[in-house]
């Protein structure tokens, strides 16, 4: 597979996941963030001699771009829109949805880094080393942040 075919395959396979990652991290324009991440990856594609580096680079880029977006939103005093769930299933899954709503609200109360760690761990299924790589922190920090995040999540749920 030539270099650009590899890039195209990565785009096909990962664009939606990167967009959803940006969304779960709280960005209000996840598509734009995923697109920007891929444009930056494209610029660096020839320097990524090992294809396995591309996905970690993308994840780190999406995390960084989402942080920038959230900072911008704070500056202009805008609040990212909340997640829109499927209203069709509202009645049949009322209780489950109520529970999910509580967890979503509790997630929203966590610090930015705690939310990032939980999304990368429990949605992307990354191990601690990969999370550390994406966030640019030490593995020990990931362990501690995950533990604090789960404790805080539990506490917010009990208080709520």
């Amino acid at each position, binding site marked *: 597979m030539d270099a650009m075919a590899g890039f195209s395959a990565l785009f096909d396979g990962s*664009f939606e996941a990167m*967009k959803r990652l940006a969304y779960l991290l709280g960005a209000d324009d996840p598509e734009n963030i995923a*697109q920007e991440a891929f444009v930056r990856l494209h610029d660096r594609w020839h320097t990524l001699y090992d294809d396995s580096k591309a996905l970690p680079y993308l994840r780190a880029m999406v995390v960084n771009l989402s942080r920038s977006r959230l900072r911008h939103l704070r500056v202009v005093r805008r609040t990212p829109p909340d997640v829109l769930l*499927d209203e069709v299933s509202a009645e049949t899954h009322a209780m489950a949805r109520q529970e*999910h709503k509580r967890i979503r609200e509790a997630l929203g109360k966590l610090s930015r880094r705690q939310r990032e760690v939980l999304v990368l761990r*429990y949605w992307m299924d990354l191990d601690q080393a990969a999370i550390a790589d994406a966030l640019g922190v030490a593995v020990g920090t990931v362990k501690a942040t995950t533990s604090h995040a789960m404790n805080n999540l539990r506490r917010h749920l009990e208080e709520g």
Partner: protein
Amino acid sequence: MDELEQRLRSVLTEMAEGVSPSRNAWAEHEHRLAVKSRRAKRRPVLMAAAAAAVVALIAVPVLITGMRPDKKPELQQADSPSAPSLPRTAATQNSPVYLPQGGETVLTQPFILVNERVNDVDQMTYAYTVRRQGQAMLCFSRRAASDGQLLDGTSPDYDSQCFAMGAPLPGKVFWTHRAVTTSATSGVYVYVASSPTERVMVRTTEGQFVIASKKQASSEFGVFAAVLGSTRPPAAYTAQGPGPAYAQLENG
């Protein structure tokens, strides 16, 4: 994994699935790369321009004067007899028709882009535009003239090459442009530009100006074509509005 972790995983999955998939992500990506590439090309030009502002102030009026259509010796009309092989508009011949395949809508019907004789066979190259699953595309199909003017996209044997087009950014008009090379003809260029583009002025690397005239139009854009008579890519091109002013709309 404890219960809270399972619930968290479930909520995150549900939230992620609530994000609707993008329909034209790859086309948008290509569009962004193209915009970025244009900006990157302009950056050194802008820096040089700052240093040579006086020169530019002199050069621009000269260039504009050089592009005026009344300077006939430098101007080559794409449809004029001197143009190598671009046929007259489709309306003057039996109009070709494209039969769209499932999921396609025809935006502009085909016109004959190149008409050439290869190995004693008349070969036609057609250009047309479609919208395929929401994505606007510029398509080319090459076939023998004896195959007739019906381009049957539903046929399993139908052969074409299509390229995604992105709607221009606000204030811009170009959707895409493509060079077309066949076994016997090169230097054929197709431009797609939004209204009110009336024509596209192309400057060759040899310094000649060629007008790419409108061959077909949809409600959104016109399709323009020109034969440059050169194997080298054009030095520059400009979308121009209606005459007689032919105001510059976008330079490429």
